[in-house]
């Protein structure tokens, strides 16, 4: 009888552990995004213009450099920040000046933002400045989009492809 209880007890422990494993392996369900909303991701990695232009080194300056370092042009490594604005239905959701990455500030500026918006039709405007101009923007994209619930829209930027890209 004792053996019977012992085996029954062991079976019960295995059953409880199996239920624990089986349940928490995929439950409870985690609702991490509202089912009636859509998502817009604004993401880019873009290097702005160099801070200040190149200048030609004088003969005296070149003589002071080691022979293998005597490049005639002196170009700064530091890049300008990328200024970006994002509007939806006339409301500015994001406006920032992103500094360049890298220890010498010569890497691209990185932006990755998520916006949860209601499903439906929206007017969006994305603007970007990557030069030393003080006003206005170098690139702008206006579009009217229609988002379904749980749809994800990515706004990317590729200068070689003409600027902003909408990726569905």
């Amino acid at each position, binding site marked *: 009888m004792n053996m019977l209880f012992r085996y029954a007890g062991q079976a019960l422990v295995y059953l409880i552990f199996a239920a624990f494993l089986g349940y928490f392996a995929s439950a409870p369900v985690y*609702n991490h995004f509202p089912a009636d909303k859509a998502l817009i991701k604004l*993401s880019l*990695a873009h290097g702005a213009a160099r801070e200040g232009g190149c200048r030609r080194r004088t003969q005296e300056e070149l003589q002071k450099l080691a022979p293998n370092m005597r490049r005639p042009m002196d170009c700064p490594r530091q890049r300008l920040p990328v200024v970006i604005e994002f509007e939806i239905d006339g409301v500015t959701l994001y406006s920032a000046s992103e500094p360049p990455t890298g220890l010498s500030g010569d890497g691209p500026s990185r932006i990755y933002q998520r916006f949860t918006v209601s499903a439906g039709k929206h007017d969006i405007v994305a603007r970007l400045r990557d030069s030393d101009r003080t006003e206005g923007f170098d690139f702008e994209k206006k579009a009217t989009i229609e988002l379904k619930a*749980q749809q994800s829209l*990515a706004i990317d930027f590729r200068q070689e492809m003409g600027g902003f890209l909408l990726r569905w």
Partner: protein
Amino acid sequence: MYHLGALGFFYFWVVAVSGIYVYIFFDTGISEAYDSVEYMTHDQWYLAGVMRSLHRYASDGMVAMMMLHMVREFSLDRHRGSRWFTWFTGVPILWLVVICGITGYWLVWDSLAQYVATATTEWLDWLPIFGESVARNFLSPELLDDRFFTLMVFLHIAVPLILLLVLWIHLQRVSKPEIFPARGLAVGSFGMLLALSLAWPALSQGPADLGKVPAAIGLDWFYLIAYPVVEIWGAGPAWALAFGGSTFICILPWLPRLQHKSIAQVDLANCNGCTRCQVDCPFAAITMNPRSDGRPFEREAVVDPELCTGCGLCAGACPTSTPFRRASALVPGIDLVDQPLRDLRQQIQDATDNLSGERRVLMLGCAHGMRFGHPAIDGVAAVQLPCVGALPPSFIDYVLSRNLADGVLLAGCNGGECYSRFGIRWTEERLAGERDPHLRSRVPRDRIGQLWTGARSAKQLGKELRAFQARLPERPAKTEKSKAQPEASPETPAEETV
């Protein structure tokens, strides 16, 4: 509970074998990955599908065992002293196991994988270590490359191999580690996993679509519990929690201890370098060095205080640890500084002085397993030891031959899970005459009881004690109790002096 670490190993091997089988059918491609897993789950459900489920549930079981193992070792204060290395190397194991799980879920490329990929890369991007944003790879389907899956497969194979290496390192300071559970436990655990896999097979959660946001996710809470934290707290605080928590766990062995640690000390005048203490030390805290005092012995025992846990097994193993002394004081070749054997002998004499009745019992138990204190039972006295293995067998002979008690009940941690690892095993072997120092054959075995049941209630303990008392045979002829005269006895056995 003693087999948690060994069970973790067992689950690891189930994961490894099932993973190798699943890998045979797995395709590394954006659409091929999901399709191949679906083929396994539905078309070949009877083998590949079961293997997939075993892979998942054994992985989850491994996490459960790992966490329980860690909490248990901490709660039993088994992370300090010489155990620091094992504790410390357990922390990278936590990270590696989680990385294995994340890369594994990623490979299925269903909506859960999409969530895991996006959330992981967004979390990683917070760290200023990537030149390009990793999360940008998952902006839209056209940006994702098949090669990314090749990389993930590589990681999902490489990281477990690194995990295996770290597991090996984890056990380097543990002599005779138990990495396989008892056969019955292994069979039962595998049967449980198999039954679970058949009854509740692991399923995918619909193909990934980067143009959509998966709203409701069936998370594996064993591996992915950090993700809701990242979303609620943000990436920075979540990293702070992960790194801060890991660092805190790492330094736990060096935080102030709540109890004073007693360590072993060698008395060279009584040490002949017999090596018994070195062989019996569960933490390799004793080494045998060349003799330094000019006496005609080859070696001498040297204790490393950093590795010594103060269990006293060495004192229990020392052949000079005999309470029968003619003229000299009880100073064995090796002994605990704060709990010397001469104190134990005195405690035994004090405790048994007032014992009366027909069936007097002296209970000798370890401090960890039996928190018995003073059982309020007539004819029962109790003396506590650091570990039951710290009791030299000659002390049992001493108690019974001097008629200090009619029976000796040895009480210790629950069978097999000795706090000092080998205290119970060494005691049983010494009593059975299989390990030095032996219990002399003249000692009546029917007057010795063993109670390896761990901490239990006073009521249960009382029941066990009464049962032991009832089992004790009558003394053939009553002899007067020998009062405390440890230094002079005609019974002093010559072989117990060195």
